[in-house]
């Protein structure tokens, strides 16, 4: 027994050999049952793969303590395994108790497991059942829903039917009413007619009675004082068969005339309509054919080409058609061709419309390049119209002006017109002429004054020459060193005269009177005062050549007349300069003009 107890016992790690060895344990009569339970439980554990044995000979006490622990944890703390005295084997009683307890536990657990299994099976079957029923109910629900909708549909249709039937009923009622009213009106009409007829009948009867009663019968007769001639003046004719035939003939003639007139009118109308159709066809062909270069897409090109070619064909046909106007086929051909062209035109218009609508859509820009948008087109048209109007107006005004220019109404106006263009210039010319005349007069006056001055100068020159001669004479005669005291005085008198003349020469527009007075303010004194006597002497002695003096004089005449006052040859110089200046003056005067 001890050996047998020393056998390894483990619930967990048992393989087949050990199971069979454990099964060799002799136990209480419940052994078999235990065996079977063990078998069953062990068979359950057969699925475990080979584990290492739990207890070995060396690890008995650990195993025992471990088992005791496990037992305590399972609630079997009362049963504890112990080693036998001597430590060679286990105490059988606690081990068996433990075993028994464990078996009980196992049985309980098994039962529970079985119960759970059955429960689970039940549940699963329930679940299946429920699922089935669920799906069945779902189907049913679907089915009923469909039925419901079907019924609704049916109901709706029936409602519609009801409505239509009601409408029909209403209309039928209305019609019935109408018919009733018609019937009533007809009935009243019939009644009225019947009454009228009856009244007439009654009158007839009365008349008949009256006539039957009355014996005398008023004969109907005509009294004419003398027969009247026929309205057309002809004699009356007897009624013969020939007359009848003639009447028939006349009647038919009248009818025929009417038919002929009608036919003529219809023919005329027909030709007119045919002409219109031809025109329409030609127009349609012309409208469709020039669009060829603008065609877009292959399909449209093809169709247009076809159109053009067909159009040409039909034009040839048209000329032939004109010849056979009354022919039935020609008429049909014409109408067919018109219909064809019209269809093509319609297609083309539709295409254009779709293209225009595409163009108006903003995102399709590429296709809009060839066709201008409608707005732009309209603006362009408006602008061109304005331009055209402006040009026209301009042209009109130009024409008017040109007409006025080229063909004047009469001589006076022509003269006026021709005169008015140069009026401004004429005015200006007049103004300028006036100015010129004025200036000329002024210059004349000045020239006159100058000539007078020149004459006076000549006189004065002569006087001066005489004076000079006398003075020279005196000089020669009275050559003294005190001569310079007298000279300024005589020089002064001379210089005044000469400078007066000089001043006249130099100051051009200044009148001579002024120059005389002006010369009075000149400073020949000062000039002469500072003039050295040597120069005078030289001059008097004619040692200085005249040219230098002349040049001096000229310079002086142009710039400073004070230097000229010293010059004895002044008169001559003066004359020359006077002449030159006069000439220059005159030149100056003439140059502006």
């Amino acid at each position, binding site marked *: 027994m001890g050996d047998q107890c020393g056998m390894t016992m483990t619930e967990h790690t048992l393989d087949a050999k050990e199971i069979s060895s454990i099964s060799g344990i002799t136990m209480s009569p419940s052994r078999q049952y235990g065996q079977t339970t063990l078998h069953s439980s062990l068979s359950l554990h057969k699925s475990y793969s080979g584990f290492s044995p739990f207890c070995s000979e060396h690890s008995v006490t650990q195993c025992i303590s471990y088992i005791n622990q496990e037992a305590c944890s399972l609630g079997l703390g009362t049963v504890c395994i112990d080693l036998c005295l001597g430590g060679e084997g286990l105490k059988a009683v606690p081990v068996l108790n433990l075993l028994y307890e464990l078996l009980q536990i196992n049985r309980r657990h098994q039962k529970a497991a079985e119960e759970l299994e059955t429960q689970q099976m039940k549940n699963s079957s329930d679940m299946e059942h429920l699922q089935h029923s669920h799906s069945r109910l779902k189907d049913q629900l679907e089915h009923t829903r469909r039925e419901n909708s079907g019924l609704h549909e049916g109901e709706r249709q029936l409602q519609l039917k009801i409505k239509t039937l009601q409408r029909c009923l209403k209309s039928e009622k209305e019609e019935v009413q109408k*018919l009733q*009213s*018609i019937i*009533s*009106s*007809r009935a*009243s*009409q*019939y*009644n*009225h*007619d019947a009454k009228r007829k009856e009244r*007439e009948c009654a*009158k*007839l009867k009365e*008349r008949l009675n009256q*006539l039957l009663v*009355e014996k005398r*019968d*008023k*004969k*109907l*007769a*005509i*009294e*004419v*004082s*003398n*027969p*009247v*001639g*026929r*309205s*057309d003046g002809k004699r*009356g*004719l007897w*009624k013969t068969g020939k*007359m*009848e035939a003639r*009447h*028939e003939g*006349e*009647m*038919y003639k*009248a*009818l025929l005339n*009417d038919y002929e007139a*009608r036919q003529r009118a*219809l023919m005329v109308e027909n030709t007119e309509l045919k002409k219109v159709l031809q025109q329409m066809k030609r127009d349609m062909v012309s409208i469709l054919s020039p669009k060829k270069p603008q065609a877009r897409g292959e399909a449209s090109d093809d169709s247009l080409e076809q159109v053009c070619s067909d159009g040409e064909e039909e034009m040839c046909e048209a000329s032939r058609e004109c010849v056979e106007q009354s022919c039935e086929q020609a008429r049909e051909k014409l109408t067919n061709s018109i219909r064809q062209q019209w269809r093509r035109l319609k297609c083309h218009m539709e295409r254009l419309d779709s293209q225009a609508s595409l163009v108006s859509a903003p995102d399709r820009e590429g296709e809009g390049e060839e066709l201008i948008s409608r707005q732009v087109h309209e603006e362009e048209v408006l602008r061109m119209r304005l331009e055209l109007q402006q040009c026209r107006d301009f042209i009109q005004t130009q024409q008017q002006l040109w007409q006025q220019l080229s063909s004047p109404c009469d001589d006076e106006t022509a003269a006026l017109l021709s005169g008015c263009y140069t009026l401004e210039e004429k005015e200006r010319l007049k103004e300028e002429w006036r100015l010129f005349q004025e200036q000329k007069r002024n210059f004349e006056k000045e020239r006159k004054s100058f000539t007078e001055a020149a004459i006076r100068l000549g006189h004065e020159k002569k006087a001066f020459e005489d004076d000079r001669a006398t003075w020279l004479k005196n000089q020669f005669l009275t050559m003294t060193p005190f001569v310079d005291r007298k000279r300024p005085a005589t020089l002064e008198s001379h210089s005044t005269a000469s400078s007066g003349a000089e001043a006249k020469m130099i100051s051009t527009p200044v009148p001579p009177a002024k120059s005389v007075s002006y010369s009075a303010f000149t400073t020949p004194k000062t000039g002469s005062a500072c003039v050295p006597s040597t120069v005078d002497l030289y001059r008097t002695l004619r040692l200085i050549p005249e040219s230098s003096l002349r040049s001096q004089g000229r310079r002086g005449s142009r710039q400073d007349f004070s230097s000229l006052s010293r010059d004895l040859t002044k008169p001559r110089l003066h004359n020359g300069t006077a002449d030159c200046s006069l000439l220059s003056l005159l030149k100056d005067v003439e140059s502006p003009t």
Partner: protein
Amino acid sequence: MNFSELFKQTNQLCRLSPDGKYLATCVQYRLVVRDVNTLQILHLYTCLDQVLHMEWSSDSLFILCAMYKRGLVQVWSLEQPDWHCKIDEGSIGLVSSRWSPDGRHVLNTTEFHLRVTVWSLCNKSVSYIKYPKACQKGMDFSADGRYMALAERRECKDYISVFVCDDWHLLRHFETETQDLAGVEWSPNGCVLAVWDTCLEYKVLLYSLDGRLLSTYSAYEWSLGIKTIAWSPSSQFLAISSYDEKVRILNHITWKKIAEFEHPANISSTKAVVYREVEKCPVVVSEDLSSSQITVSSSLFNTQSKYEICQLPVQVAVLKPDPDRANPKVGVSLLAFSANSRYLATKNGCFQVLSLLWHCSGDSLILLGKEQLCLCYMETEEQK
């Protein structure tokens, strides 16, 4: 407008001669003939009884005076005042009397429409035409006066006889497909005869001169039908007016309807011009290019009135006639084409317009009411 002095007359017998030179009036049993320009009495004739019907002959040489009560017709001559002619119908009675187009024959319709007697003034001969129909318009002469169409009824069937007015020779006699023929009318060109049925059946039949049926037209069934018809002067159009307040126009080539004109109570068409007489009693006149509705209200004191143009839409006052009475006063009752076939004047409803007459130039229209008259001038284009 200038008015002459008042002259007496009885029975509205006042007729101008066809050549427009004379005016004949009847006062009781006297016939007075005046000159139109001077209104001086030229002739005075005395008849045997009160004159109920007076008619000029087409050449203005004779005047016919019919005395229905006595069954007498007397014919007077203008050229020879002492020429006399008396036609006595005897016991058979007289219902209506008229001239033939040539002015030499008198057609008397006897009482109860038993027969039409044709009396010739040239040779005193008599012709009888049996069974003429008593209807709205049973006898019509063609425009050129060569043919006469007469509606007859025998054994509950309608017939038409076409006579040559020259010698009253029966040219054609044919049956018509009508229920109860109401009237016949020649087209102005004399080649087509329009025949219309009673108002209980809308039907127009078109026969050619030689009696062939050219076409039939029926707009609808059962409701009351045609009131009257009118040919356009060019014979191109036939206007049919009916009780449904519409006028339908047929064309002479296909005899199919080419136009239909309505007369709605609420005028809202933009092409219509509505003239309203501004006065105590408002009068509404509306005209558009091709049709007109006229209403003239009766007013005793109607001195001055003006016409103003109304703003559309205009509601025309409509009196609903008694539908239970026979021949109700609904529908278009008067039709008149202008001379150039340009305008059509119509009268719809129960308005008191008795006649619509166009001037021969086609530019103006005269509306005659019971106590009023109105002249309408159409806008004409400027003459270039």
